[in-house]
């Protein structure tokens, strides 16, 4: 028997390959050089090259008949997005990791591995590759969450994350098994062609499989009722990793869900509408309500990120092209907002002392003006105040839901946004509360690189709130690839 090796088109997965190569290269650098700066530089270069490559790939989709990897605008868009998210995470980590007992030589390569997992997750066209890249992402994240070895909360977050995460991926695996059993294939394209002919009640086996897969993926995006791990893990993880987790990891899994329900499982979606309707309401409400009185800022933002999943689901339910555009646009905007919010907390760390409590933020506007201003912009944006990116994002989300006839859901979402104002503006007002008789004098904290990155992020929140059209155009291009399959 002769084995014919497949013709591998290296160029098609160039960004992913570059990320993997540079991660391994960085590990080698770590072994042979003592400088963790060099490791950092290697990783950064790799991400920039990957970003540039995905930039060049834009608009040059490769048709995929039997390929495991989709190379289309959707993938390319997310490759670029994840590269940027990873770059920002790394730059924000600078200074923070050195003070908090993290082994930087392995920390940065692991960020790259997690990024690789995200990229492959969004580009996978096969349940096997999907499962493997999800695991690559998750396992890198487990380690990163626990990377502050000397802090108990970090270890506790890591053990909670890996236990619940592995539990969830068990569900995912069993779900995949049932889907495979019901259809006899694990390829998205074949699944789609098989399922498009499906009529009537549908197969219980298949439905069960999709349900269990949604448990596993719902865990990843922290959707109610699979959200419970999120506040604990977000609180315990090193702050830059919290940002990474709440943006990159969540977006990757959600982007995959988008692809799943647009292509292979499109015909099963009608059964999910009612369920997702309720889950969206629950996610928004539980997230926002639980955030109301949080004393810990990281935990508050964690709950708010659960609420944001709810907002995303509001549009996702519509599953129209317009809704997909809205969701992908919101991914991008939420990535910026999440990174900014957690980046500000990172940047406010002095030595080992982190500002986690609400009290630590009293009158911050007078002692640490730069971070306070950026955090305020970010909070306004998260709350969806006009002229910020968050408003544009929410406008698109809710209007596409209304457009598809889910007026009630959109109303609930708007009411939830109103509730969320309480805690976002509460924190903001706290930062600008007048200091007491003796204004505290503080040395400005935060690494200069981090501050510059934060300034850029804050600026882009405003810029995208005023002039979102270019981004919207790009997002439209990305989503066409999704529906063209």
């Amino acid at each position: 028997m002769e084995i014919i090796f497949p013709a591998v088109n290296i160029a098609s997965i160039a960004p992913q390959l570059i990320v993997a190569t540079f991660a391994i290269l960085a590990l080698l650098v770590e072994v042979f050089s003592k400088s963790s700066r060099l490791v950092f530089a290697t990783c950064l270069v790799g991400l920039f090259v990957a970003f540039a490559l995905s930039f060049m790939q834009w608009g040059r989709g490769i048709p995929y008949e039997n390929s495991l990897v989709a190379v289309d605008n959707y993938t390319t868009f997310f490759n670029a997005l994840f590269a940027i998210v990873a770059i920002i995470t790394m730059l924000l980590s600078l200074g923070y990791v050195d003070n908090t007992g993290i082994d930087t030589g392995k920390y940065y390569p692991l960020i790259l591995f997690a990024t690789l997992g995200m990229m492959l997750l969004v580009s996978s066209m096969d349940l096997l590759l999907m499962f493997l890249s999800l695991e690559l992402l998750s396992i890198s994240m487990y380690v990163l969450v626990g990377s502050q070895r000397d802090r108990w909360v970090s270890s506790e977050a890591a053990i909670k994350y890996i236990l619940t995460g592995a539990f969830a991926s068990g569900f995912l695996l069993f779900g995949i098994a049932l889907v495979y059993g019901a259809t006899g294939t694990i390829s998205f394209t074949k699944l789609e062609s098989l399922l498009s002919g499906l009529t009537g009640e549908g197969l219980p086996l298949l439905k069960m499989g999709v349900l269990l897969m949604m448990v596993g993926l719902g865990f990843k995006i922290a959707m109610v009722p699979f959200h419970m791990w999120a506040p604990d893990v977000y609180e315990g993880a090193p702050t830059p990793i919290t940002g990474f987790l709440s943006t990159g990891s969540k977006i990757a899994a959600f982007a995959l869900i988008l692809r799943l329900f647009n292509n292979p499982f499109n015909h099963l979606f009608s059964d999910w509408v009612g369920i997702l309707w309720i889950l969206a309401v629950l996610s928004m409400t539980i997230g926002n309500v639980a955030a109301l009185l949080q004393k810990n800022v990281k935990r508050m933002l964690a709950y708010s990120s659960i609420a944001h999943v709810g907002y995303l689901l509001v549009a996702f339910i519509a599953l129209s092209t317009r809704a997909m555009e809205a969701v992908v646009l919101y991914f991008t905007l939420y990535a910026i907002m999440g990174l900014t919010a957690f980046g500000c907390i990172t940047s406010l760390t002095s030595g080992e002392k982190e500002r986690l409590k609400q009290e630590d933020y009293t009158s911050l506007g007078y002692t640490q003006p730069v971070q306070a201003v950026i955090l305020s912009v970010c909070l306004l944006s998260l709350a969806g105040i006009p002229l910020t990116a968050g408003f544009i994002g929410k406008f698109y989300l809710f209007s596409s839901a209304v457009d598809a006839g889910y007026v009630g859901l959109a109303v609930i979402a708007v009411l939830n946004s109103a509730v969320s104002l309480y805690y976002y503006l509460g924190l903001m007002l706290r930062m600008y509360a007048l200091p007491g008789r003796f204004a505290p004098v503080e040395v400005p904290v935060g690494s200069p690189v981090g501050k510059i990155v934060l300034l850029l992020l804050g600026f882009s929140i405003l810029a995208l709130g005023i002039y979102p059209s270019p981004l919207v155009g790009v997002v439209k291009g990305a989503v066409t690839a999704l529906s063209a399959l």
Partner: protein
Amino acid sequence: MVEATGLFNKLWLVPAIPLGGALFNCLLGRRVSNLVVSIVSCGSIGLAGVMSLLLFNALLKLPPAERHIELSVYNWIFSGDFRVPIDLLLDPLSMAMITMVSWVSFLIHVYSVGYMRKDESFARYFCYLNLFVFFMLLLVLAGNFLVLYIGWEGVGLCSYLLISFWYERHSAASAGLKAFVVTRFGDFFFALGIMLVFVQFKSLYFGEVFPRAHEVLTPAMATWIALLIFGGAIGKSAQVPLHTWLPDAMEAPTPVSALIHAATMVTAGVYLVARCYPIFQLTPTALCIVAIVGLLTAFISASIALVHNDIKRILAYSTVSQLGHMFLGLGVGAPTAAIFHLLTHAFAKALLFLGSGAVIQALHEEMDIRRMGALKGYIPSTCWTFLIGALAMAGIPGFAGFFSKDAILHATFVNGGMLSWLIMIVTASFTAFYCFRLFFNTFFGEKRWDSHVEHVEHPTQVMTIPLILLAGLAAFGGYMGVPHALGGADKISSFLAPVFPPAHHTDGGSPSKALEIILMAVTSLVALGGIGLAYFFYIVPGGRETPGRLQQTLSGVYKFLSNGWYFDKVYQVVFVEPFLKAADFFWQAVDNSVIDMAVRGLAGFILRCGEVVPKLQLGLVRWYALSMVVGAVIIGYFYLR
């Protein structure tokens, strides 16, 4: 409609450059020296000004019918078929406005460099000021109602920020708040008007609303929309009865008063009505109301200005009065005259305010004209430029204000009737009188300064040069609109004519040259009479006692005027106190029972949930796993059913 080409494609630069300046000053202003801040802020406005001149030149080369350029900069939101584009519109009206706004702003910026040189918050000041210019340019260049509204609210915000710029002063903070609340009251109507426009036209785009206005709108609907829009204009342009905020707004630094509360922002209301003129033309009722409000405002505030002693408040009331003139012009069907007056008034009033700023600084923050005098010898350049401003304001033939005011008065006589013309003649005499009362009291007579003024501070070069340039504009700016009756070409009218369809207004060709010349002569004589009276009262030796005696004999009138016709008092009695009482009553009676239970109950319930819900996070792994499994089971039950 002409698509933007060539230079017109760069139209967006006009507002964008000041925005860039504002961003620079906001982000880096505190890091760099004041010199850099001044160069950036003045330079950005100057560039915008140059840009507007280039555009002006390009626009003049087009045939008049094609002077209507639209530029859709980008779509702010486009989701499905819902679009919110950022449209700009350049036509003679907005052209005239941006040229005036950018250049007057430029001069005031330059002046501010000198005026604010010692202030700690130099960069903050210029950041606000540049931002204001951005919003103002956006407002006048807007091509749809939404952009206009953004600019409208933006200038309001900047005005509020600048009024309470010295926020340590209680009066400044409360004046800012008053301006904010009162103008917001007007804005509420404006927003309603915009919504009504959207409901009627399914569009906010000027190019779709105005040409179709006479088809779509019934007269009643046109009246409603026009009145709602005019409500916004009343608030912003400080017309009776919402004029009370403007005198208080004088807490702002004087250049701000010159820029925002005299030359530009307060004229936005006039601009708005002029912009929406196609709608107003459909409804004689609304035009009549505009005219009446304008007439009343012009008269009432001119009368108040007669007796005030605070130099800036006199000018503020004068501004309100002149804005009234403009609305009267709009109301009696002479929009070009109104816009003409808007321009000449901007020059003259900016000049007067800047001059008063120099006076105030010279005497170390002294604002009471009773404690001034004899400054001619100390700050002569200010004195002579102030004189030109006062002459222009009083409407002395040859100066800018004369031509524009005359155009309005003429239209009033023709369309508004004898009575209103007579009122305006009286107002003209008031105007001339208070301008020169101010002038003579400030610069002539004997020294009446406070003892603490040891030396008079001289304005620096950067302050004087804008004064001189503005004086030039105030003196000669009127020649762009010399009426046909005097053998002029009335260029401004023919320039603005494409914006206002000629069929409905009458200020172009006059029925009789002789009548126009007679009217002019009457106005001029009345103005000269006012000046003469002021001269007699304040310069002629012994005349000084006359005002005092008058004050005693007419003490009722005097009190009535100096209290500003009791507007604030009436508001206090009619609105504020009953409101507070009612609120008190409701607090006692209703709040405890119904509303309390509803509002606080709901809010309290949500907050209680905020306590309970997170308690569901037990922190236990198996609890989290349990919630997943239970979730899966419940979802599965409904899904597989």
